[in-house]
């Protein structure tokens, strides 16, 4: 489904964020990427949604080179990828409902679909009673749950979650991991980065370990070794 082919990213200050990274992700797989800060995890995620470009190498999503897509095709691809970030990235001036509705509007969904699906996904993440709250009226955990609801509402093929538990307390970490795990069980591919050992232990499954821009370990049995 996803293929990173010798991807290298060198920043203008000559620092190497990714160094010939190659790996594949199969459909419905749950891949956790671990590594210290600066190991290149976030850069890797940004490459997949074309928020950053590789200096060398290619990234393929279902045989299509992500960085050679035209703008319209790129928009379509992004609608097939749900994104969850450590800093939530919610739209400040929109309510929880509107944040999720916006992702559906961008995909060309009808008003009727939006009116039925948005309350449904908010109920799934247990925020049905806060759908008209603005982001500043929500806690960190609640914001992350809105972000997850936004990521799943268009039933994407894959969800990429960059440190989704980074800003959360232990109880919320457990809640978020459970939700993401459940999404995977329902058939969505997950690519998640973290440097939290408890998260890796909770998830299990395949773990890619990164260090200084390289993938140094690809373990199918969910081991966190750093």
């Amino acid at each position, binding site marked *: 489904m996803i293929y990173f082919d010798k991807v290298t990213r060198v920043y203008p200050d000559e620092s190497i964020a990714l160094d010939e990274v190659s790996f594949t992700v199969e459909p419905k797989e749950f891949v956790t990427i671990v590594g210290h800060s600066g190991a290149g995890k976030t850069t890797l995620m940004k490459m997949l*949604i074309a*928020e950053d470009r590789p200096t060398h190498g290619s990234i393929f999503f279902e045989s299509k080179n992500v960085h050679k897509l035209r703008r319209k095709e790129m928009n379509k691809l992004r609608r097939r990828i749900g994104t969850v970030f450590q800093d939530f990235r919610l*739209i*400040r001036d929109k309510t929880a409902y509107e944040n999720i509705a916006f992702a559906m509007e961008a995909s060309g969904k009808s008003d009727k679909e939006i009116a039925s699906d948005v309350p449904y996904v908010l109920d799934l993440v247990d925020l049905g009673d806060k759908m008209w709250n603005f982001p500043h009226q929500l806690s960190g955990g609640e914001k992350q749950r809105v972000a997850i609801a936004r990521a799943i509402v268009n039933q994407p093929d894959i969800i990429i979650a960059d440190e989704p538990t980074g800003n959360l307390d232990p109880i919320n970490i457990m809640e978020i991991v459970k939700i993401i795990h459940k999404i995977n069980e329902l058939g969505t591919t997950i690519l998640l980065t973290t440097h939290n050992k408890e998260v890796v232990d909770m998830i299990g499954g395949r773990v890619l370990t990164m260090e200084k821009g390289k993938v140094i370990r690809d373990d199918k049995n969910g081991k966190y070794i750093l």
Partner: protein
Amino acid sequence: MLFTYLKRIIRTGFVNFWRNGFLSLAALIVLTLSLTAFGALIFGSAFGRTLVEEVKSKVDINVYFSLSAEESAILDLKKIIEQLPEVDGVEYISRDQALASFRNKWKDNTLILQGLDEIGDNPFPAVLNIMAKEPSQYAGIAGFLDGKDSLSKSGTAIIDKVNYNQNKLVIERLGRIIPAVQKGGLILAVILVIVAVIIIFNTIRLIIYNSKDEISVMKLVGASNSYIRGPFVMSGIMYGLISGILTLAVLAIFAFYSDLAILKFAGVQGTQDFSLIVNVFSSYFRQNFGEIFAIILGSGVILGAISSYLAVRRYLNV
């Protein structure tokens, strides 16, 4: 689909405008001030034009004819002068009209009228008042008259005096000053318009800069550029529309109250001597309301829309 798309863009534009609160208010104030500068330019140029036209209309060349000049010879000369390309109009005042006008002017002064009666004959010559299209053209007309030896049937010269030389200095100065004032006004207008456009553009850019993170999020959920840009352009149009209406209100208040203020300042209740200044603004506003409305609202809406369009563009490359 297109209808739903447009409906969402317009609705989001309205909602963003409302939710931006203080920023929207600040933008409205800045845009209103900038558009008022446009309005001031419109009024300034109208006032300048009126002033220049008024001064121009006071300047003319008067050709005085000898008392023995026959009317037919004068009218022949009038026809020739009217055909000169630089001549805007020629007014003929016959001897009888000049006498009647004098009597009317001094009708309350029996002493002067008695003196006139004692002379017996009509002492007033016939006059041609010549108006040029531009003050600088009077010299040419005066030259033409100097070289014109118009004679009566008896062979005597009919032109007694041309008063150009007496007014030459004033006319020449006006010929130099008026184009300079017009040129200076145009330069000032261009500078003011550029400043106003830059201020409007930067104000809207600042508002959109405030939303740059949101724009990148919208891109990452797969929204098209036009769907992201649409609501910002809509808000820009609203800034322009509302500030345009506010500006028209400010200009209307100025136009109708400045006349009274000028009269009050001059310490008069209203007299024909002040007709030059008084009512220029209010009558200009009334007569040209459609044009002013279109310029102010049109500039506001177009500037608001274009500024928003350009300001969003730089954040869409995600």
